[in-house]
Every structure is written in C-alpha cells, then in structure tokens.
C-alpha cells in the first residue's frame, strides 16, 4: 500500500464496505476476554505485538494434535506431514512478499535475528576497515546495534541519515551520505516509534546507484503495507511473524538468491549441512544453509496461517481501515489539552506517539491500563530517536485491523481521566 495517505477514503460508511470489523473481531478470542475487573480490552499496542486469530491458534493446535514431528529428517509419515506443512509455509511467505523462489525465504526467530544474520554473515564477509554502513535516525535498536557490533569489529563507520521535525527522512542528506565507501544501507519500512513510512523505493534506488546493498527492516511494514520485494528490488527484507497476527518467535529474512548464495553460514548445526566429517563439512543449499537446528515448526506453520488470514481479508482493505483509525484518532488526540503528537509525517502507518504536558507517559500507561486500555509507554527501543525529539519517552497507541473508532474514543476518555488526576 504505497498510496499517499491523503488520498485514502476516510468516511466510516465507506470503510465498512472494505472491512467487516465485527466479523474480524469475532476471530480474535482475546478481544472478548475482559480484564481489570470486567472491562473490555482496548488493545492499542499492536506495534509491539498483534493478537492472534482463531485461524492461527487452531492451526497450531492441529499441528500438535495431528502432525507434530521433526522436519527434513524422518522417513516416517508424520515427518513427511510436518515437513510438507513447513515447506508449504515457505511458499506462502514467498507469495505474500513477492519473492522469486522459496530459496530466498529464510525462517528466523524474528526481525532482530534476520538483521543479525545479515550483519554477521554478509557483513563480516563484505565490510572492512574504512567502509561505511548507513542507517537513519529513526531506527529501532535492532537495526542499530547489529551494525554497531559489526563496525566495531571491522573498523567500519556507522553513518546516520537525519530526519526533520516531522520525523521524515531528509532525503537529500541521505543521498549525500551515500559514498563509494557505503557498503550497506539499512532502514525501516515504517517506524515503530513514530509511524513514519519511509520513501523506500527512492531510498533503494539511491543506495543501489551508489553501489550499496540494501536491507529493509520490515517489522512495521508487512503488517500495514503491501510488500513486493521484487518490485522494490531490495536485497534483504526482514520481518517478524508476531507483528502480523502470527506466533512469537517466528520471522522471515528474504534475500536475493545470488547474495544469499555467496554468504557464509551463520550458525552451525543440524539441517544446515550436507555432510560432516572432522576434516570438512559441506553446507546445505539455500535456504537450509541458514536454518541450523530444529526450527520453530509450529510457529512457521502458524505464521503461514496468519499470512493466509491477512491475504483473505486483503492488505489494502486493512490499510484503508487503519488509515481511517489513524486520521480519526489523530484528530481527536490533537483536541486534548496539552497533548502533542511526536511524528507528524505525511505518510504514516497507524502508529501515534504522543506526550502530555506535565504527565510522564509511564503514568499515562498505568492509568489507561486501569481502564482496560493497553498502550505502550517508554522509549520504544529507539532511544536515539527520543533524543532527537528531546523527549525521554512517549505514549504510543498503535492500531490494527480489529480496532475501532470507539476504541479511539475510549483512549481519549482515558486521557481525560489522566488529566483530571494530574491537574
């Protein structure tokens, strides 16, 4: 979904035509489980993790009830069934993100592991002293620290492209920081802390023109935006399963086959080898070379169920609904006295970071929690970004396909109670 946010339909009646939110909510058991003394759950912490639909939960139960076995190992019936389901999940992911071949889909524990894999395998082979890695000022710690570790080891330099006061990348500065020394450029598809959607197509083009390899941190991209890795032409794209309605401990690293093929293995163990002797080990083909040990089989199968669920509803319909919530909630929040939104990019995913004058976000979080409203408070694993905007922390409401305007209203009501207590 790369449509400009401003062109999306915003009227509620029109939205209902796209998305049957009541029916969707019926698929998520946790939304009907009262908390804090019988209050309905208002779950607005979707950028941290999303809730799971029955389609995912049931699929995992079925796996353990009928299919559990190790994959790629046994000749017996269950091993065949499990292997088949696991590999079909790879095909589902391939189609979902538009990859060319299953070989390009490496299952990981999550986005963080995918980025570390690239830093440790591709990075250690291709980055040397004096080379540069370029990131942006709004990255999650998981897209900062792996590169810092690599730079420290290799004597390379980490460069950071700035953002403006709206939280948008300053593209000219980004372009200026690309030099012949830039070996790799890594940036988020969308910011977890501010919601900013990066102009990734332009950024990929600029980086490639400078001869750099590009990694996209798609943790906040895949849940909200249509992703086609071939169309984008990125070299790596990493995302997490649990942020797109799938199980925790699952993730995907997409890499172009030629690049993955030339990379050394990262972790050693079973499944990633063809033959082992004490003299020499021959590594397995892609993608198994990067999947050492028994994988999270149930999780990967659950992830495929989640992606099927999203596909059936349609990512564009989801995005339209989320954009409606984003605009509605933004408008209502701005009317709250003393409230300031951090991150006002023109193109945003459904994430709103805010501060309230005179009240620390942590206190806001506790008070909202008593009302059954779950938001995230803190630095959102983006401390350099908090420094950039000169705030120690923010409150963050993030919306998913099952959220409603009424829940945005509940957030406003909760904030009024915060103000009442603190003023």
């Amino acid at each position: 979904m790369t449509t400009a946010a401003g062109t999306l339909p915003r009227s509620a009646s029109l939205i209902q035509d796209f998305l049957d939110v009541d029916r969707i909510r019926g698929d998520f058991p946790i939304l009907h489980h009262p908390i804090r003394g019988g209050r309905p759950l208002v779950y607005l912490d979707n950028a941290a993790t999303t809730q799971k639909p029955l389609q995912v939960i049931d699929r995992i139960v079925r796996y353990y009830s009928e299919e559990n076995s190790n994959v790629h190992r046994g000749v017996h019936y269950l091993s065949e069934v499990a292997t088949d389901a696991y590999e079909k999940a790879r095909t589902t992911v391939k189609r979902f993100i538009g990859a060319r071949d299953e070989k390009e889909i490496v299952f990981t524990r999550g986005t963080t592991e995918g980025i570390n894999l690239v830093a440790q395998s591709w990075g250690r082979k291709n980055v040397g002293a004096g080379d540069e890695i370029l990131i942006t000022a709004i990255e999650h710690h998981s897209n900062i620290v792996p590169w810092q570790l690599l730079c420290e080891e290799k004597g390379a330099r980490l460069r950071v492209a700035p953002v403006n006061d709206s939280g948008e990348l300053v593209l000219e500065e980004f372009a200026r920081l690309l030099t012949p020394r830039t070996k790799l450029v890594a940036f988020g598809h969308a910011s977890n802390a501010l919601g900013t959607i990066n102009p990734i197509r332009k950024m990929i083009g600029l980086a490639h023109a400078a001869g750099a390899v590009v990694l996209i941190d798609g943790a906040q991209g895949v849940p909200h935006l249509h992703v086609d890795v071939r169309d984008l032409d990125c070299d790596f794209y990493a995302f997490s399963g649990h942020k797109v309605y799938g199980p925790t401990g699952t993730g995907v690293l997409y890499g172009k086959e030629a690049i993955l093929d030339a990379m050394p293995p990262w972790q050693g163990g079973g499944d990633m080898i063809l033959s082992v002797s004490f003299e020499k080990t021959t590594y397995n083909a892609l993608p198994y070379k990067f999947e050492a040990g028994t994988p999270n089989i149930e999780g990967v199968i659950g992830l495929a169920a989640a992606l099927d669920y999203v596909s059936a509803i349609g990512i564009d319909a989801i995005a339209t609904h989320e954009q409606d919530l984003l605009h509605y909630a933004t408008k209502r929040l701005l009317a709250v006295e003393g409230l300031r939104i951090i991150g006002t990019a023109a193109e945003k995913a459904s994430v709103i970071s805010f501060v309230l004058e005179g009240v620390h976000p942590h206190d806001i979080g506790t008070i909202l929690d008593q009302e059954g409203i779950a938001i995230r408070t803190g630095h959102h694993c983006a401390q350099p970004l908090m420094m950039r905007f000169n705030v120690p922390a923010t409150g963050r409401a993030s919306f998913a396909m099952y959220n409603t305007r009424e829940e945005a209203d509940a957030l406003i009501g909760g904030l009024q109670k915060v103000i009442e207590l603190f003023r």
Partner: protein
Amino acid sequence: MSDQLRELYQQVILDHNRNPRNFHELEHATKKVDGYNPLCGDHYTIYVEIDGNTIKDIGFTGNGCAISKASASVMSATLKGKSTEEAHKLFDVFHKLVTGEPGSLSTAELGRLAAFSGVSEFPARVKCASLPWHTLNSAIEGDKETVSTE
C-alpha cells in the same frame, strides 16, 4: 477512577511530582550516581554529601514518571541529616512497603513514606518507586557509578 489508582497517586505523590524537593545538583557532593530504568527510560542522577556517616545533603536531577520522581523527592527530604545506618534501615522499610511484603510496619516507622503504600498493587511500578533508593544506596556504598533496575 478506581480506588487502587487513587491509592497509587496519593496527594503526597502528586505534590512531590509537581514540586520535587532537592531537585538540583549538589555543589559539594561527595558522590554522584546515575540510576536507569531501561524498561521505561527513567533516568536520575543522585548527589549526596556524606560527612563521616552522616548524610549532610541530597540532591537529584533527571527524568521519570510521577512515582519515581516523587520517590526521589520524598527520599531526599526524609534522609537529609540522617546517618547512613538509618538510611539503610529506611531503605529496607521502603522496599518492604512497595513490594507488599507482609509484616506490620507501623505508621511511625513509615512516616511520609506511607504515601507509597499503593505501589505494591502495581507490580510494574515497583521498579519506578525503588529506582532512586537503589541509586542512593549505591552512592552510600560507593561501589558503583551506574545503577540499573534490570
């Protein structure tokens, strides 16, 4: 507004949050320690001036929620002029109070620390209340320059 919330955000806490006491650096500090709560980004620097075993002065600077700021403020007001032994004892009393450890702490023992009695109902906030105390403890012990609640 739930009773639990009113119990947590007592007037004393709201007042100390709005007008924190001793909220400044200490020119003659004998020790200065940074305390972090990496979970929420709370960060305080606690300054102490210790003469022999007497805490002559305490100051603090930094940023955090109402609970942690009020805790630092009340702590500084309570401990100024006390001996380091008394400070240890009160640290223990405070810790029991916020972790809800059963035991009969008399109102006299608690003094103005009693304002933090509601914290034990909020497990996620215990670290907020205890961060300044852990930091000060470290300043008195003199063994660390940074304290983290994780």
